[in-house]
């Protein structure tokens, strides 16, 4: 049978059928993999928390744990049920508190992690910043989402950059941990990224400085910017939470 492919009716029918068939194929694939994608997203956060609190839990290599072991560990030892909000600036910024305990009894707090996020050179960068239980030191940083230039800004994911925030790695290198308490001079940054080496303890950059990534100045500056903003707003949110009635306070914290 000869088909008249120039007929308007045929053109419309062909376009409709083709679109429907292929769209259905994509939707089917999307639905079939949705659970796995969701699990991947969940595991990204769980593995980030396991990596951040591994030193406090005495884990040498959290990457060697299976997905299920990581889920069991984090579910047992991390309480992520509370948030604190800074509404002194608009828009208000809520921080989910990931409170890590030494064991599943949830008696001894070993650290706290908070979400950090901000606009990088290309897109949103998102991570988790770990602090000591007294909130005075930075103990680790893991990025879980970024779309910076591969090989340049994308290297913020690599240990060469994130290890600079790790209290354990800095200790091995004979360096002091990064400080997370408010700087002595009001308005000074909590942390410096790529601002040179401090000259001594009197230097405002002392115990607050990490190296930038060569060739990724804008990404490094973006990381510095949002870490400082989030630390400043987190401090204010915690202060507000502790000024609130006892029932609303984040329990067990500093």
């Amino acid at each position, binding site marked *: 049978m000869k*088909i008249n*492919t*120039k007929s308007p009716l*045929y*053109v419309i029918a*062909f*376009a409709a059928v*083709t*679109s429907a068939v*292929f769209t259905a*194929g*994509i939707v089917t*694939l*999307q639905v079939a*993999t949705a659970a*796995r*994608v969701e699990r*991947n997203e969940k595991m*990204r956060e769980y593995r980030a928390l396991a990596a951040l609190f591994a030193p406090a839990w005495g884990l040498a290599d959290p990457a060697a744990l299976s997905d299920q072991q990581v889920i069991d560990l984090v579910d047992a030892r991390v309480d992520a049920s509370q948030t604190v909000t800074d509404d002194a600036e608009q828009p208000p910024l809520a921080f989910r508190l990931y409170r890590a305990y030494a064991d599943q009894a949830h008696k001894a707090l070993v650290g706290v992690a908070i979400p950090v996020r901000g606009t990088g050179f*290309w*897109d949103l960068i998102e991570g988790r910043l770990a602090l000591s239980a007294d909130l005075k030191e930075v103990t680790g940083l893991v990025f879980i*989402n*970024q*779309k910076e*230039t*591969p*090989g*340049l800004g*994308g290297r913020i*994911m690599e240990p060469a950059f994130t290890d600079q925030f790790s209290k354990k790695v800095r200790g091995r290198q004979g360096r002091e941990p990064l400080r997370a308490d408010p700087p002595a001079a009001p308005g000074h940054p909590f942390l410096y990224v790529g601002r040179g080496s401090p000259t001594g303890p009197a230097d405002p950059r002392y115990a607050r400085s990490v190296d930038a990534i*060569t*060739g990724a100045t804008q990404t490094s500056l973006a990381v510095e910017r949002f870490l400082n903003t989030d630390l400043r707003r987190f401090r204010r949110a915690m202060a507000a939470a502790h000024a609130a009635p006892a029932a609303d306070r984040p329990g067990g914290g500093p």
Partner: protein
Amino acid sequence: MTSMPTNVTGRRALLSQLWDENPIFRQVLGICSALAVTNLLLNTALMCAGLVWATTLSAVTVSLVRDYIPARVRMMVQVLLIAVYVIMVDIAMRAYFPDIHRVIGPYVGLIITNCIVMGRLEAFSSRNRPWPAFCDALGAGLGYSILLLAIALVRETMGFGTVLGVPLPMREAWWQPWTILVMPPGAFFVLAIAVWIARGRALAREARRAAKGGAR
């Protein structure tokens, strides 16, 4: 649309796209991704695999339905097919290779707009049988990949002092990374030099062939 077979064999179609009509240095197509992803070999290899997949499958599909595609909407249908295969890669990577997807995810979607894919569908697959169409698309994909991998090898090695992420032996002692090579301007330098060398060799080969033909 009337389909006019061009009687090109699969082997001839593959070899032609692989070198004689190489998409990068002869047709100057697919340059955006050649510049964007070639600072790391692994990213480049994955991008090339994605492009080969999308080009070959969409070429075969277009060839199979070429007699039924109305001329007026053929471009729309071709873009739809390319998009479907690229989205399939994207979804599969997100589900099964999430770490790799995080690195090159932003570039995978760009395969849809890669001129090589659309160019081969419109110029070849829409007029030829599935096997030659497959070979032509495979040749274009591999021709693109060869040049991109060569460029990436130079950029990663000289820019980072690594090959596939593995540091060169004792690189601190003898190699100072050329950071500019992993930055966007470095891509232009290396691409231009690669195109210059490849075109020079191709033109010299053609000149030798012509001289042989003239001597007979």
